């Protein structure tokens, strides 16, 4: 199960498991973003390489207009995935508790 929606604070809340089966749903939402946004991963348990592709594709598109995604409340496992992928150099990432 994966859910993505705007929270009351304007951040984009991602919840559940973003695996290959859920990427179409995530990509549809991200394609509707026209400006910079903050992704709140507090409820995101898991991300696959296909999910990384959704993030990267969106970041590249937003960068064309000078905008960018920020990602907050990243758990330790996903933080490792970002580090191994080199995503910490191309995304503004805040771990849980920061």
């Amino acid at each position: 199960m994966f859910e993505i929606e705007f929270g009351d604070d304007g951040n984009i809340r991602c919840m559940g498991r973003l695996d290959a089966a859920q990427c179409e749903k995530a990509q549809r939402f991200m394609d509707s973003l026209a400006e910079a946004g903050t992704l709140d991963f507090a409820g995101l348990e898991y991300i696959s390489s296909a999910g990384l592709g959704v993030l990267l594709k969106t970041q590249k598109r937003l960068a064309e207009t000078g905008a960018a995604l920020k990602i907050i409340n990243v758990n330790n496992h996903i933080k490792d995935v970002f580090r191994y992928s080199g995503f910490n150099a191309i995304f503004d990432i805040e771990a849980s508790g920061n």
Partner: protein
Amino acid sequence: MQKSFARSYDSLKEIYDFTEDFFQAEDIAEPTRYPVHFALEELFTNMVKYNPGNDHDIQLNVENGGDHVTVTMTDYDVDAFDVTVPRKVDTKSPLADRPVGGLGLHLIRRMVDTLDYHYADRQSRITFTKRFE
């Protein structure tokens, strides 16, 4: 524990539940679970993606090795695709030059302890292990 799964992304939830049942039955801690789930799902997704017309199920076996988990995945009637062959991965380029995709096998190699591939009689068998953390 062994089970076969339909060649579809829709099987990912069922695979997760199957593996979680194994972890709980064997009392395997959470830090070990994530990398196993990750490697398993990436490898299964590759099998679905690169052999879409194949109607054979994919067999999954998980075992408790005492201080590690062993996962074996068997795919039937497929061409060889050696997942252990190192592939060039770009994790350092600027955003504009970064390709979308191709990270899965690189990430698996970072997260598991051993990764082996065997191919015979049009059967691919992938085995990986993850030490308990």
